[in-house]
């Protein structure tokens, strides 16, 4: 059992948790993730490790309520425990001194960008970040990203805060201004990652994206998370989650991520109407 020792609401339905997991806290590096299962009847879901505190033995995760499992997680409070937390999984981010690194985070995707921005800064890079959200209320980790970057740019789709528009427009401006970018890290919804890759492709700027396919075990034994990268099948959980953004088959990833739309909706309805609060505590008979 893995106890929740801190919980904070970052935005509407977006929560940050600190979870007691000393071994993972000691081992994890930027770019890695955990798979967790809330209870005996639960499913296994992947979430990025946003940070860790080796002394306190905790890891930090951020989750948005988008379906049954994350909604159940959203109902959990400090003192509650998660049944299973496995990690650290996936390959750590390749960190080196690229000169200038532009870190781009879209929506909840800012959470996985944060540890990478920190590590890139520590490695001596000049870190310029662009984070965006649909509106001001959905923007997360502004202060943390400001601290992890030399320069922070904010965009909102509706113009309620920062630059009015998309993160890619700011990135394009940097390129147009002649900024010598060594590497771009772009993480967010799949269409946003594809858009970032499309901006950098003509200039051959190295671009790293972190993929979010469906996962089951997260240790390479099933291939649920397979995605075509540069024409070859790769398992995101063991070969990634980070890949060259210019080689990813984004259409396929989006199609695969829709595989269980019907079932996800049914599970959420069942949960909303029949199970109610505290259902994460259920146990099988």
């Amino acid at each position, binding site marked *: 059992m893995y106890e929740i020792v801190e919980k904070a609401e970052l935005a509407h339905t977006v929560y940050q948790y600190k979870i007691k997991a000393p071994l993972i806290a000691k081992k994890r590096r930027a770019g890695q993730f955990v798979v967790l299962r809330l209870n005996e009847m639960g499913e296994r879901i992947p979430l990025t490790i946003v940070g860790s505190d080796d002394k306190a033995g905790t890891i930090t995760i951020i989750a948005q309520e988008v379906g049954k499992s994350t909604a159940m997680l959203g109902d959990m409070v400090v003192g509650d425990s998660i049944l299973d937390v496995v*990690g650290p999984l996936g390959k750590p981010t390749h960190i080196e001194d690229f000169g200038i690194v532009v870190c781009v985070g879209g929506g909840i995707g800012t959470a996985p960008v944060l540890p990478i921005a920190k590590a890139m800064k520590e490695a001596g890079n000049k870190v310029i970040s662009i984070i965006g959200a649909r509106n001001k209320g959905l923007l997360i980790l502004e202060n943390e990203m400001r601290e992890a970057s030399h320069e922070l740019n904010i965009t909102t789709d509706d113009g309620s805060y920062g630059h009015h528009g998309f993160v890619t427009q700011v990135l394009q401006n940097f390129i147009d201004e002649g900024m010598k970018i060594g590497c771009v890290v772009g993480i967010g919804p799949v269409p946003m990652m594809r858009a970032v890759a499309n901006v950098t492709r003509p200039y051959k700027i190295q671009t790293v994206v972190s993929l979010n396919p469906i996962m089951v075990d997260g240790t390479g*034994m099933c291939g649920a998370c*397979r995605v075509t990268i540069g024409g070859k099948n790769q398992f995101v959980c063991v070969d990634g989650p980070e890949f060259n953004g210019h080689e990813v088959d984004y259409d396929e990833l989006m199609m695969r991520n829709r595989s269980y739309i019907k079932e996800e909706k049914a599970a959420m309805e069942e949960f909303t109407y029949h199970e109610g609060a505290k259902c994460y505590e259920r146990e099988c008979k």
Partner: protein
Amino acid sequence: MDANEIKGRMKIPRQTMSEQNPHERVRNFYEVPYGFTPEQAMAEAKRCIQCKKPLCVGGCPVNIDIPWFIRLISEGKFIEAAHKLKETNGLPAVCGRVCPQEDQCEKVCVIGKKSDAVSIGRLERFAADYEREHGEITIPSIPKWTGKKAAVVGAGPAGLTVAGDLVKKGHKVTVFEALHTPGGVLMYGIPEFRLPKKIVQSEVEYLKRMGVEIILNAVVGKLETIDELLADGYGAVFVGSGAGLPNFMNIPGENLSGVYSANEYLTRVNLMKAYQFPEYDTPVIRGRKVVVIGGGNTAMDSARTALRLCPEEVSIVYRRSREELPARVEEVHHGEEEGLRFQLLTNPKKFIGDHEGRLKALECVRMELGEPDESGRRRPVEMKGSEFTIEADVAIIAIGNGANPLIPQTTPDIKVNKWGNITVNPDNGRTSKKGVFSGGDIVRGGATVILAMGDGRRAADSMDEYMRTGIW
């Protein structure tokens, strides 16, 4: 035993196990055969002629004293029979169910030369079930601690055998398991209707009561490396991480929704209990027409699982003919009784999807058998121009697994062969790295539960020797 008694015993017919009828069982996940009654078990046990030099023992990869435990059953001493079994086999209720006995102990049974071999597997199952169901599971006495501790990577059949053996020799043992449940393939691979999960867990519970410590959610290589385990004071490490890397076909359309590896499909259904969705949270696409590609036991397990998820039709697509099917005859027979269809001498060329990226059909080609290949089986050859399509909204690829690469990747000084399997000395399970032993599917590639257990047995003996003497 005199000649007359032997003659008398040979006249007893082989006892048949009753089982759920096919129309009913295909609608549930309960176990198919019910097992022997005590009367049947005693009658079957009397068929054994108690050979002085029993060949059956040599046919068993862990050399169970078969005539002895069978004699105990014939005398009605069921609990004693179970204890006898557990001296050499920590998982008898599992092995009695899933071992291919027709290729092992029962293959060499002397009675089998003249009539049907003694049902050794069913008797093993009976004794273990009887002990469990009558609540009389006792644990053997454990010797004083030797002061040594050993680490086991992977809680599958190989690792659990090592753990049980080493604890009985007086060592402290910690098993590290990546998944949230111990058992390996017994939990995620073999379906509930062939091996009820509560039986696996009760056999694991037995090991825990003997003192085996199991740490779940622990991915060795990611959480701790083998080198760190050795530095932490573990005197020896056994790697039993299995062959869990699914092979794909590398043909177009393989990443459409509805195309699964058998590992994913079986993990969703068995380990995550997707057959009870939405009571359990993990979904699985049930499909209307399901095609399983491959002809081994994993293919049969996948197909019979699919049959229970109520589609209209489930077919096996296999590129050779019926004679070459590697699956157990019993499984093929059970599948056919349950309505499983076969598309033999057929090979998929591509998966065809709809506009949403969901599978709707397979394009296949007919095959014919040519000259024998290195394995001695006749090589399937494509028949030009024989392409045709099979409608399907779920396809399950069961064409074998590769070695799990995690341990070799994070422990580069462990030697592997060109397929990524760990190289060991077959006599003692020693790897190229001092203090590290290995066995089971990570060494053999996909093999059987009992072979993995036999490897575990040999490795445990040599780990014990190494920890006591320090000589490598």
